[in-house]
């Protein structure tokens, strides 16, 4: 166990963050080299420097298709995987905090069902008016619409209670799931495309995917960090939090929308990748404690590292690529059972 820092000031966490950033960079470097075509880390560094500086002298002696493989094929996929891993973890931390429930995850409020519904419509009706981004756009629209439906359903006298949110999320997700099942039923040959999309993939990601997710996730992260201390205090319960000067409804709504938009963009580019947003915050809370100010950056970085590793396993280690959503659930599920059991033994709860 890591030491519990005196009074939880954010300074103490800096070395851990630097270490995690370092690990993330190493993982990015090595995973870029891994795959059908093996490229050494040194060559990867040279290619990246050549791209950034525009100086092709660095490419001397490197197979001429390597820069293409690194820059156009692998890096967009790798960076998207890392950003999505970070984004889902941030959203997980925030959802667990707002809903006062350590078992909540980015999909608790039906955001994933909304995205899946949107994507299924686009795939079923073969909508391509926006080219390759049609499905992502439909998925995003579906998840945002779901979010507002959930907020509308759960708010009463201008308040948002966590129980109402969870219940509304479950109800709406159930309705949407039925819709998705129906679409699968009528889809005929498209059904495999829908199923494949739902299982998640980072295949054929492009630089626009990278920049779009990075934009959402980084802005979202800044907003969440801004309200991190308020989120700590909300865990005391609404009455205590508001007696400590926190506008619980406003903070909750802001963070809910922020975390949901992060989730929506992640799901739109990568499909439904389960367990990351549940396990990473859980695991990190175990190491750095529940203080959101530490938990957010540490979870974001660990989520990025782990999802990137998982994607690298399906892409470069396994002989046949299995969907990333299936892999995270297969690894994450049993692992979660383990920590859940262990944690209960520790607290006797």
């Amino acid at each position: 166990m890591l030491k519990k820092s005196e009074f939880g000031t954010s300074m103490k966490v800096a070395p851990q963050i630097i270490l995690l950033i370092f690990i993330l960079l190493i993982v990015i470097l090595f995973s870029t080299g891994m795959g059908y075509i093996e490229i050494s880390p040194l060559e990867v560094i040279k290619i990246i420097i050549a791209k950034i500086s525009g100086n092709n002298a660095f490419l001397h002696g490197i197979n001429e298709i390597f820069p293409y493989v690194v820059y156009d094929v692998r890096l967009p996929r790798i960076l998207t995987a890392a950003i999505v891993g970070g984004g889902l973890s941030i959203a997980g931390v925030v959802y667990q905090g707002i809903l006062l429930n350590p078992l909540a995850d980015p999909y608790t409020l039906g955001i994933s069902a909304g995205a899946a519904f949107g994507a299924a419509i686009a795939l079923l009706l073969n909508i391509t008016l926006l080219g390759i981004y049609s499905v992502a756009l439909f998925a995003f629209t579906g998840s945002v619409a779901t979010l507002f439906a959930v907020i509308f359903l759960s708010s009463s006298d201008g308040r948002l209670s966590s129980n109402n949110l969870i219940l509304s999320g479950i109800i709406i997700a159930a309705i949407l799931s039925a819709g998705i099942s129906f679409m699968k039923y009528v889809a005929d040959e498209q059904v495999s495309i829908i199923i494949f999309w739902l299982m998640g993939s980072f295949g054929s990601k492009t630089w626009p995917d990278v920049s779009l997710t990075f934009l959402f996730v980084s802005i979202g992260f800044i907003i969440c960090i801004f309200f991190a201390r308020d989120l700590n205090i909300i865990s005391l319960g609404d009455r205590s939090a508001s007696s400590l000067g926190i506008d619980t409804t406003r903070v909750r709504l802001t963070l809910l929308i922020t975390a949901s938009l992060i989730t929506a963009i992640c799901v739109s580019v990568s499909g439904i990748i389960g367990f990351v947003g549940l396990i990473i915050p859980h695991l990190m809370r175990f190491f750095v404690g529940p203080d959101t100010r530490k938990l957010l950056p540490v979870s974001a970085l660990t989520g990025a590292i782990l999802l990137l590793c998982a994607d690298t396993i399906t892409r470069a280690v396994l002989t046949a690529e299995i969907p990333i959503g299936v892999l995270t659930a297969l690894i994450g599920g049993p692992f979660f059972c383990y920590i859940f059991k262990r944690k209960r033994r520790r607290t006797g709860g």
Partner: protein
Amino acid sequence: MADNNVFDINNISFYYGKNKALDNLSLAIEPGNFYGIIGPNGCGKTTLLDITVREKTPSSGTIQYLGCDIKKYSRKGLAKEISLVPQDFYINFSFTVKEIVLMGRHPFIPRFSSPSSFDLDIVNEVMEELKIIKFKDKYITELSGGEKQRVIFARALAQNTPVLILDEGTSNMDIQYTLNILDIVGSSVKTKKRTVVAALHNLNLAAVFCDKLVFMKSGRIVHHGSVDNVLKEENIKDIFEIDNHIYFDHYSNSKQVVFKRKRLA
């Protein structure tokens, strides 16, 4: 309506849907007093207290804090004036005791700042006083109900406000800690001129520690005044519909209420 009142509550009503929880209730809370709010379950005590911390807004009527409409205060500003020990204290995340108590300093610590040494001193002092310092590094989730409640109490005391609202704040504590806490709170009423408004179930503790009692029934105040004037057999009978006997107890130096069995066989 005197200007120096802490709260001036004027004709407030509050509805939950169609149910009236508070019915045209008026009350002035004077500074430097320990108020005990007494009444049967569901009489509106918690709703009244929620209105004083602006957790709820009355459906009609006004409430003023220090002569100024409570709505005009900023949330942070009010948090520097009034602290609350709530009835429920369930915390799902394993913060340490010290971290929880430090949260009481939240209104005084600017965003992105670390707590000052003054903040930390208050936190340590309060933990010492409430005898929770020995488990300051334990997780809140590992404590018993009574211990948790002392931590929540410490959190409110660390806020160090001129007004303290207690909603059954000692319900889960044993008698030792209940007395310890009421003593700490009661003496701060005398020495720091703090104003305390407490919903209490234990009539005899209320008689020992409170300066004034407010008796509530069905969303109204039926009797209020000094303990001597209000704590009477007929008033208790009126509110709780129970037979009782009240006498002056020399040991506790206060009036005490006693009851007897209704069915002997």
